[in-house]
């Protein structure tokens, strides 16, 4: 073999590697330094002891996880467990409702004329461009005691007099559905747009009822979009902070509030960090589950966001 050729090739490889390092390392270093290290530090904090000012101190212990499970100075209390269950319940209900609303909307947009579709999608997305705090504030105004919506709910006997629809668990669910609807409509719309209508026609030719035709011909085709939507909705919903804080009025706290309150009040960093670890585990478990389901369906690549 020609020595200079080998030398040339290895020199080219060195240049390529140098190029890779030059382009990639500033960003990689930034994310490692300002996100990976901080997260690692936070995980460390979870295993430390709570000091007198709410700041983490040595020695290492599992005290924060005991506290997260509800064990305190006064024995066991179910408060944290309720918060956790409420987070799960709110996430499941809100995601389910978002699917129920987004499905017909995404389908409807695909049935409209092509020139209208971008405008319709834009109309769905634009509210989510405004700040989350402002949107939630709008719902506070709408649901407060004395507003037309609250008055209507009162006459129907849905709520006690002068209570208002906010603050409540219901208001939090509504806020979550409102916040995440666009994240479900977009992937579902993409799935509907690619829908192979021949399959639906075949089902109809074989005298399938509309429900059967939907279940066997439409639903499987939109599943990748649905899964992507569930990931985009459920994961941030589970860690939501702003909406329960504003619309729940302190009575409908979720895991995000439990975590944040340990830091903003300066009360107990290790406990907050333990809650954050739980949230991370839930996030990665959710992502992993969706990937597995997506792969089994054969649409694995599309589900990756």
């Amino acid at each position, binding site marked *: 073999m020609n020595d200079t050729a080998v030398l040339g090739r290895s020199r080219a490889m060195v240049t390529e590697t140098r190029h890779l390092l030059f382009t990639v390392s*500033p960003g990689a270093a930034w994310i*490692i330094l300002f996100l990976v290290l901080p997260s690692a*530090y936070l995980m460390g904090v979870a295993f430390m002891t709570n000091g007198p000012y709410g700041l983490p101190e040595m020695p290492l212990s599992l005290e924060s996880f005991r506290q997260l499970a509800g064990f305190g100075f006064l024995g066991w209390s179910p408060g944290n467990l309720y918060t956790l269950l409420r987070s799960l319940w709110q996430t499941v209900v809100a995601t389910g409702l978002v699917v129920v609303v987004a499905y017909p909307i995404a389908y409807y947009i695909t049935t409209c004329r092509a020139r209208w579709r971008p*405008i319709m999608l834009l*109309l769905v997305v634009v*509210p989510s461009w405004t700040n989350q705090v402002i949107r939630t504030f709008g719902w506070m105004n709408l649901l407060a005691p004395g507003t037309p919506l609250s008055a209507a709910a009162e006459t129907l006997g849905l709520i006690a007099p002068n209570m208002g629809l906010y603050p409540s668990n219901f208001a939090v669910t509504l806020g979550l559905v409102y916040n995440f*609807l666009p994240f479900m409509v977009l992937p579902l719309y993409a799935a509907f747009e690619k829908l192979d209508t021949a399959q639906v026609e075949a089902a109809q030719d074989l005298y399938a009822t509309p429900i059967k035709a939907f279940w066997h011909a439409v639903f499987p085709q939109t599943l990748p979009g649905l899964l992507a939507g569930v990931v985009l909705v459920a*994961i941030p919903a589970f860690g939501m902070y702003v909406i329960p804080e504003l619309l729940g009025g302190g009575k409908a706290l979720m895991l995000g509030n439990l975590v944040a309150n340990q830091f903003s009040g300066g009360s107990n960093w290790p406990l907050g960090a333990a809650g*954050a670890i739980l949230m*991370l585990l839930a996030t990665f478990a959710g992502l992993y589950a969706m990937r597995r389901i997506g792969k089994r369906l054969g649409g694995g690549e599309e589900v990756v966001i």
Partner: protein
Amino acid sequence: MRKRTLKRGLTGFWWLTLVFLYLPLAVVVMFSFNAANSAASMTGFSLRWYHQLFANDQIMSAFGNTLVLALASSLIALAIGCLIGYGMYRHRHRKLGWLIVLIYLPIVLPDIVFGISEMAFFVKLHELTGWFKPGLGTMIIAHVTFQIPFVALIVYSRFVGLDPTLFEAAKDLYATPIKRVVHFMLPTIKPALISAFFLSFTLSVDDFVISFFTSGPESATLPIYIWGAIKKGVSPEINAIATLMIAAVALAAVASLAINRRKA
């Protein structure tokens, strides 16, 4: 026959959903013109909250902070993210799994975990080094961290969409790498750079949770100011600032539609 009923039902549902989506924003806009100091009933039209807005130093400084934060972080993220995007493209045949994981991390991490990790970390760093005092600086660092992935992915997908032979042609045309960057790369990815900048800017203005936890006492942005005002008991001025922010978004929406139309 049944098909037509379905279509009509769907049309009705569509308009209902639009009302659901725009009602909270409409209420905020409406009460910003309310003459009375009330969020329950409209008594008359007035611009007094807007006058108060411009006389309020805290709001004006929050507005300034929001702009400085969004501009500075977007520019830094554009430079860093653009480099990664190109690196990912050029070396796409190598095994870069770790880089993909790293880039997706800021996107999948829950906001609240993101925010408190950085807060705890900056507090510790400040204790150790005396630098990284919570304020605009730490907020810019945090915003750049969540903007980098979006810039990188937009720039990467623009490169993937290009004809690979273009790069060979550029090599023949321009002798030095610097000339290639200035005369070929930057002009070709200009649309991607513009949309990445606007997305970063919007993400920054939109963010509340991460800003909230990395901010200092002097560096409140508009969302942080609004949050504080809501928590203290609502002042009608909030409706006025919120309306201006909604107006900015509406303007951006119209602009994006116009740009799309021209492309088509």
